[in-house]
C-alpha cells in the first residue's frame, strides 16, 4: 500500500532538520530510548526483545542438527529470517516476506555473518556430515522506524543468549548431551547504525515519520575494532561520497555507545 505523506509534514520535518532540530527533540546523533532484554522466550534456546523508541522486535533462535552446505563442509549454518507482522503497521500484509522484509533479514544476516559474530567453524559436529544450524527469527511486532539497527542489536543479543547442548562423537555415534548446555561461540559483537538524509543533513535512528520523508538512508555495520562489515544504502535519492565517509566515521563512534546495551558476556 502506498502511504502518501502530506507535503506540509515533509516540509515541517525538513525545516526542523535544517535548523538543527528534530520533531521529537533529539539531536542528530542521538538514539531514541533503547531497551534490550534477553531470555524472554523460554522455549527458544536464545531470545531477545529489543525496543528502539516504539519500534519493537522479538528475536528467537532455534538450533537444529543438519547437514552443512556441500561447498562449505567445515562450517555451521546461520539462517536469518524476518517477518514484518501485519500487527506491526497498518500497511504490512500477511503473506510471504515482501522485499522490505527480505532486505531486513539479508542485511542483518550479512552484518552478523561477515563480522564473524558466531564462530561458525566451532558449530561443526562431524565435518562434512553434521553441523549445527542456527535459525535466527526476527518477529517485528511494532514498527516505528529504523528496523535495521534494532534487528542487528537484538540478533547479537539473542545469539549471545543462546545455549546449545554439547555434542561429542563416541564410537561413530553423535551424542547430544542436553545435560550440558553451552553458549554459542561468540567472537565479535558487530552492530549497525542507520542514518537518514533529510534536508541535506544526516541524522541517526530515523523515526517512522522521518523515514517516510527522508531522501536516502544508509546503514553501516561496524565491528568492535571499528572496521566495516556491512553497508546498505536505501531510498530513492543519492548520497555524496562525503556523506558516506562522514556516516562511517560517526557510526564508528556511535556503535561504541550502542554496544553498552548488550549484556555482559
Amino acid at each position, binding site marked *: 500500500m502506498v502511504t502518501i505523506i502530506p507535503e506540509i509534514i515533509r516540509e515541517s520535518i525538513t525545516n526542523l532538520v535544517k535548523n538543527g532540530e528534530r520533531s521529537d527533540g533529539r539531536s542528530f546523533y542521538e538514539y531514541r530510548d533503547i531497551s534490550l532484554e534477553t531470555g524472554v*522466550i*523460554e*522455549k*527458544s534456546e536464545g*531470545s531477545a526483545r529489543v525496543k528502539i523508541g*516504539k519500534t*519493537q522486535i*522479538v528475536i*528467537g*533462535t*532455534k538450533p*537444529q*542438527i543438519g547437514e552443512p552446505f556441500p561447498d562449505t563442509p567445515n562450517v555451521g549454518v546461520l539462517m536469518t*529470517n524476518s*517477518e514484518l*507482522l*501485519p*500487527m*506491526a*503497521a*497498518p500497511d504490512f500484509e*500477511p503473506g*510471504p516476506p515482501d522485499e522490505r522484509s527480505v532486505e531486513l533479514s539479508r542485511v542483518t544476516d550479512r552484518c552478523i555473518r561477515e563480522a564473524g559474530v558466531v564462530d561458525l567453524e566451532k558449530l561443526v559436529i562431524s565435518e562434512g556430515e*553434521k553441523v549445527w544450524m542456527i*535459525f535466527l*527469527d526476527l*518477529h517485528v*511486532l*511494532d*514498527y*516505528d522506524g529504523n528496523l535495521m539497527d534494532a534487528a542487528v542489536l537484538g540478533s547479537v543479543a539473542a545469539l549471545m543468549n543462546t545455549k546449545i*547442548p554439547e555434542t561429542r562423537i563416541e564410537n*561413530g*555415534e*553423535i*551424542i*547430544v*548431551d*542436553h*545435560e550440558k548446555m553451552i553458549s554459542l561461540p561468540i567472537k565479535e559483537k558487530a552492530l549497525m547504525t542507520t542514518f537518514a538524509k533529510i534536508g541535506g543533513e544526516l541524522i541517526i535512528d530515523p523515526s517512522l515519520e522521518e523515514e517516510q520523508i527522508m531522501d536516502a538512508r544508509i546503514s553501516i555495520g561496524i565491528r568492535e575494532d571499528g572496521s566495516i562489515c556491512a553497508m546498505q544504502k536505501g531510498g530513492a535519492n543519492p548520497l555524496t561520497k562525503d556523506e558516506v565517509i562522514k556516516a562511517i566515521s560517526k557510526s564508528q563512534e556511535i556503535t561504541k555507545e550502542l554496544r553498552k546495551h548488550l549484556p555482559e558476556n
Partner: protein
Amino acid sequence: MITIITNKEFSTGIETSERADGRAFDELRPIKIEAGVLNRADGSAYLELGGNKILAAVYGPRELHIRRLMQPNRAVLRCRYNMAPFSVDDRKRPGPDRRSVEISKITSEALSPAVFLEKFPRSTIDVFIEVLEAEGGTRCAGITAASVALADAGVPMRDIVVSCAAGKANGQVVLDLSEIEDKEGEADMPIAIMPRTGEITLLQSDGHLTSEEFEKALDLAMNGCKKISEEQKKAILGRYG
C-alpha cells in the same frame, strides 16, 4: 546414529491422581493480561497464561479493499492466528498451516457475536494474534487477548468474549490443560463465552468424553472463563482507569 541425552523430565502425573504441575482440578495457571502494549495498532493486549505468551492487535474498523469479502450491511471480522517460529520446541516454519487456518476461522466466529458489526457496513476489523510462546491452550489464550485488544481499540461490543479450556487428563476432568496434559490427556475442550449471558461462542472437543464428563467439563470451563473475565476487566481498567 544420533543419540540424544535429555534432561527434560516430565512428570505426566500418571502415577498419582494429582496434576503434573500440582494444580487443583479447577485451578487456572497463573495469568497476566496487559492492554495497550503496542504503538501502531489501534488496540492491543499481551497475555501470559502459564508458559503461554500471546500478543493480540486490532486494526479497524477500516476500509476493506477486497471487494468479494465485503458485506453490504456489516463489517467483516477477520482473524489471523500465527505462531512465531521460536514459540515451540521444534522450530515452526513461518506461514499458515492447516491448524492455524482452522484456528483463525473459529477465533473469528468466537469473537463476532460480541461485536456490533452491523454498525460498520463494508468495513473490516482485523484481529492479529501472535503466539510468542506456546504451552498448551494457545487458541483460548488468543481469543481472550484479542477481546481485550478489541476493547482497547474502542470497538463497540456487547460483551468481552473470554475463552478457556477444560478436558480430561489422567482420568480426571480438569480445568485449563497444560501442554503435557493436552498431549497425554484423554480430551481437550476449548470454549469461549460472552460472560454476561453465559452464551457459548466457541465450542470444540477433541478426545473421549461421556455426557456426564462433558457437562462437568463445560461447567469447569465456564467457571474458568469467569475468573479470566475478571482479569480482562482489570487489564482494560488498568489502561483507562
